[in-house]
């Protein structure tokens, strides 16, 4: 089956993504308009949204009553941070208990075992932190675990991220007012108005394509062509898949994740799921502009990170549509036809381009889902994936992504203001050392929690014993794993035998540190900024809507990412690329 031309696929994907980011972004901006203290007005063709207020409002009111939430109770940054941590701690405990004891819980149709203490620690931490890194095959969880632990978590953790955004918008919209809103209200609204309806819509699209959806059975038995009996795990695939992709989650029911036909049956479902990843994260960035009363600024921010995303996807496509040198062998007079590109461990229905765009969508957001085996990618393709990690997954996660890119934006505003002879300010709030230290803490955090463990892992047998390929690729396997944990991404290059106490503990700590240290620091920044006065901006101020600002922002993001991680990448994909030693001949996965 012939795949469309890569350029066509590329253009269709990014064209559709841009349109959807606008539509979903306006929708998200509307959802949190009050929580953000914004002077938001709906564009004319979105005014119909107002009619939804009544329906959603009743559902939310019911949840507030049941859960005992007082929507009018506002929190300062410390109370807000405490609520985030408490809420997530409860999720963690629930996950840990279910995972550890799942063998004794209902709906265990196929008799799976409970997880070991260290694996349960890693899995609970990984899902609580919206990372979804899996050190187990999806098949080893029961339908109960998938539905009531993993499934619910997949809504609540992106909702946690969503809930942070309006609080951060308040940092700039508040005039000397430390209150950032009510975290629980934000979570409820994000779930009811954003995650549930949109993922339900995606799930319906998936079911229309033939994806599986059941919670009544754990497996189906099929008779194969060779008369063998195959037990195939089934479960709530369509529903899990929808929120898994839209909520920057990523942990699938099957180990093979979205390459299986149950999760992702057709090229159309693949397009829908690929779009679901960046649309959720970039919509938050777009909405930022509406919340702070500068839609053009929001578009500039979306443009900056969208361009980086598209450029990296271009590199990925270049890598995967090219030949894999390791496959360029002749055996018994037979050669591998690589005219369509590097097809090892890729699905024929997606092709190299569809797989590359997915791969970069997964690493340009913190989605952990995969539709091809990343370890079979060429060195150039692998470089594009790892570089996306180096800049903290470009648009990062739902909600947290906005906050993380704003750290770079604040640095850009800081440097940019100085370059025009002004004291630094962003959106009218002066940037002083109190905020800058936390901004830098967040930016520095990724290299610290990735590189220091990496230095240990590659020089210790605890780390190196797990790698599947020697040399540069082995280095990339560990680096990818640590990046994936530390950027709360969750995808794997794979090949690494990572269900060991060492990796479970190291990765488990990484996912937690990566999630909560920046969140608390970012809320502290919001707290400081919220108490400041708003200075007006004029022609002498830094124009955050100008092309020059866009260029400076891209420059700072790429340079900071490159400067920090280029040495490490040299020992992985860059070294592999320049040494010409692709490692697949040595028994790659």
């Amino acid at each position, binding site marked *: 089956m012939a795949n469309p031309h890569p350029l066509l696929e590329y253009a269709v994907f990014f064209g559709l993504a841009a349109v959807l980011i606008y539509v979903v972004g306006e929708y998200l901006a509307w959802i949190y308009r009050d929580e953000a203290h914004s002077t938001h007005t709906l564009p004319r063709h979105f005014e119909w949204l107002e009619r939804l207020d009544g329906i959603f409002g009743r559902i939310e009111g019911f949840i507030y009553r049941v859960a005992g939430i007082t929507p009018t109770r506002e929190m300062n940054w410390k109370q807000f941070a405490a609520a985030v941590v408490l809420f997530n701690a409860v999720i963690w405990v629930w996950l840990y208990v279910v995972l550890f004891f799942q063998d004794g819980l209902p709906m265990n149709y196929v008799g799976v075992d409970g997880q070991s203490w260290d694996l349960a620690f890693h899995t609970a931490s990984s899902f609580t932190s919206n990372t979804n890194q899996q050190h187990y095959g999806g098949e080893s969880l029961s339908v109960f675990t998938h539905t009531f632990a993993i499934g619910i978590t997949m809504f609540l953790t992106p909702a946690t991220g969503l809930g942070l955004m309006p609080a951060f918008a308040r940092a700039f919209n508040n005039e000397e007012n430390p209150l950032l809103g009510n975290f629980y209200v934000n979570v409820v609204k994000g779930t009811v108005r954003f995650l549930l309806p949109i993922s339900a819509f995606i799930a319906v699209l998936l079911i229309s394509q033939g994806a599986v959806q059941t919670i009544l059975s754990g497996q189906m038995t099929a008779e194969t062509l060779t008369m063998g009996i195959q037990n195939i795990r089934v479960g709530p695939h369509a529903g899990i898949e929808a929120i898994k992709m839209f909520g920057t989650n990523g942990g699938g029911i099957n180990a093979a994740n979205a390459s299986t036909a149950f999760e992702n049956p057709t090229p159309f479902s693949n397009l829908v799921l690929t779009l679901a990843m960046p649309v959720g994260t970039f919509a938050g960035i777009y909405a930022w502009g509406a919340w702070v009363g500068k839609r053009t600024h929001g578009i500039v921010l979306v443009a900056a990170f969208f361009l980086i995303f598209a450029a990296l996807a271009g590199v990925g496509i270049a890598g995967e549509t090219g030949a894999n040198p390791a496959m360029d062998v002749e055996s018994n007079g037979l050669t591998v036809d690589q005219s369509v590109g590097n097809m090892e461990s890729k699905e024929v229905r997606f092709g190299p381009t569809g797989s590359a765009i997915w791969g970069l969508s997964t690493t340009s957001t913190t989605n952990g889902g995969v539709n091809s085996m990343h370890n079979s990618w060429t060195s150039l393709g692998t470089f594009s994936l790892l570089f996306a990690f180096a800049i903290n997954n470009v648009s990062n996660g739902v909600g947290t992504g906005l906050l993380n890119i704003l750290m770079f934006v604040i*640095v850009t505003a800081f*440097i*940019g*203001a*100085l*370059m*025009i*002879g*002004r*004291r*630094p300010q962003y959106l009218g709030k002066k*940037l*002083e*050392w109190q905020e*800058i*230290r936390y901004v*830098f803490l967040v*930016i*520095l955090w990724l*290299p*610290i929690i990735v*590189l*220091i463990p*990496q*230095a240990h892992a*590659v*020089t210790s047998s605890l780390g*190196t014993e797990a790698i599947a390929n*020697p*040399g540069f690729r082995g*280095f990339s396997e560990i680096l990818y794993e640590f990046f994936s944990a530390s950027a709360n991404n969750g995808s794997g290059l794979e090949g690494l035998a990572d269900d060991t106490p060492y990796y479970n503990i190291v990765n488990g700590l990484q996912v937690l540190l990566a999630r909560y240290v920046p969140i608390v620091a970012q809320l502290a920044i919001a707290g400081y900024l919220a108490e400041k*006065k708003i*200075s*007006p901006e*004029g*022609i*002498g*101020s*830094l*124009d955050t809507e*100008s092309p*020059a*600002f866009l*260029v400076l922002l891209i*420059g700072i993001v790429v*340079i900071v990412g*490159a*400067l*920090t*991680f*280029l*040495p*490490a990448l*040299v*020992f992985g994909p*860059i*070294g592999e690329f*320049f*040494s*010409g030693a692709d490692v697949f001949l040595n028994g790659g996965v």
Partner: protein
Amino acid sequence: MSEIRITIDTTQQREAIKQSAVRLDPRHLVKNPVLFVVEVGTVIALLLTVYPSLFDAGGSRVYYGLITVLLAATVLFANYAEAYAELEGEAHADSLRELQTETDAKRLRNTGVDVEAITDDDYETVDGGSLEQGDIVYVDEGDVIPRDGTVVEGSASVDESAITGESDPVIRQSGGDRTSVVGGTEVLSDRIKVEVTSEAGESFLDKMIGLVEDATRQKTPNEIAMTILLSGLTLVFVVAVGTMYFFGQYLASFVTGFSGLDVAELIALLIALMPTTIGALLAAIRVAGMTRVTRRNVIAKSGRAVEAAGDLDTLVLDKTGTITTGERVAQEFHALGDTTDEAVVRASYQSSLYDETTEGRSIIELAEKMNGEARADGGDAGDIGAAIDSPRWVETDLEGERLSEDDFVPFSAETRMSGIDLPDGTEVRKGAVDAVEAYATSVPGKLRQVSNRISESGGTPLAVAVDGEVIGIIELQDELKPGIADRIAEIQKMGVETIMATGDNARTAQWVADQVGIDRHYAEFDPEEKIELVEEVQSEGKLVGMTGDGTNDAPALAKADVGLAMNAGTNAAKEAGNMVDLDSNPSKIIEVVGIGKQLLMTRGALTTFSVANDVAKYFVLLPAILAAALPGLAGMDILNLSSPQSAVVATLVYNAVIIPLLIPLALRGVDYEAQSGSALLRKNLVVYGFGGLIAPFVFIKGIDLLFVAMGVFQ
């Protein structure tokens, strides 16, 4: 405006060089985290020079020695930049301190005697240093004022050029806003009684010197944020490069013949990547910014004030002294009745020929200017300039008979007119409208109408009469300070709003505001209301700068983000403001805004340059350091350098030498002209961002070619 000259002589140069070595003391360097890490790196490189096999992989001692020397040079150059800048600041303090010469003082025994009647018996001559606060001293013509004080009686003209550099004497008198005198200045004429207001060593000058010295030593708030940013970057690189050592060991596990990365080279990489350039120049940029302020004879009490000046959104300006000179000058001539314009100009010119008042001079100037313009136009018939062919046309027009000063009729309080009697007996007079009206025999009906219109627009009308016939009116308006309209346009271009507050009537205020393009103005403004105005603007979140000299300005000066007090003003004003202008020129606040911006801009531009440099350094150093393990990485070496050692040494040479190369830029400040934020960002992004990407490639390749020519590292 004159400048205090600051020269750094060779002794100071030598002192700066000595200081660069003294400051190697880790206890000093730890205050600058960037440089501290460089020093630690240097020590490790030195250890490797002595024990090359300290970390397994051993290179040559000469190579390590060279790395050590270049790293040490980096620290020394950085120290030099800092020391040089601080010495420049101190040089200014010293130049102020030299003014402090001890003088004798005439302390009054009998303070009650009238200042004009003081005799030698009324005072005792004492050593200036023995004066105490509250003493009353007598300062006669030619005496030096012994200590800072307040004039309690009399009025005198004082030469303050010693501190202001301004050669014109200023009037100091009791009562009002001109009472304060500064120790070390000289009374030129008349005599005054001065109450000493400061203790020995605590005079205004002493305090200023202290403030300048303190302010240059303390980091400004933005600089603290900057230091955090640079420390953060340093930490990133320590982690990124430090972990490379372990990655190298992993590499050694599967690359045959490779035993690990060279620690000295890793240190070289780390230090090349760290923001040493901006880290070294940060202090110099601050000191230079402060010095630029003091060079314009403005004492900034803190660096924070200078930074805030760059960030001002709004300037509250007085009318008189800031925008106008306080004088009224001729603006236009109006002919009345059937008189020709030419006749009015001629009569006005003649009447003012020997009138030395500002009004008189301005009438001459305007008449001559109109004459010049008329001639430039080619001169239409009937135009006032038609018959005029030389600036001194009156003389030729009067058939060679020269007017002389003897014919001048000076202004007197009685007639309230001045003028001239021409040799043919014609009386030409000008003066206040009612005075001329009373004098004249023939008054055209339009006189009242025109003069009222002038008054309503804020001007002053002067009537001109020839032989008792009123023929026209001279319109006087406030004189604008030269170039003030341009400077206001300039700061508006930078996005600074201008507000004029004046006690004058609304008409005058409107006229002046229109002339210079002021954004907002308040007339009939009570100085006490200034504080409310400042607070009102601040409540909009804006930063306000203002000038003031009177005691009633003090609260507003203290409240404003930048309060520039005039040295000629009261002590209360000077205490309240965070800057003092020794020249007492209020429009200087506009310059201070520019200096503040330049300070911030230099910091931003050099940071961008420093960080952009790193891209090139990676492309040079990573292939060099990994050459042994990964020869294929040479593909990254886009400069195609001659050898790995040459690449490392050339990069370190660039890294060290760029610091002294940029010292002049740091001291001078980046070029800056008033333009919008967007235009400035574009320009600086190209010059310092793009320039920062390219510069190291060019330099490093150049040094490498030099090494090839010298035959080293091949």
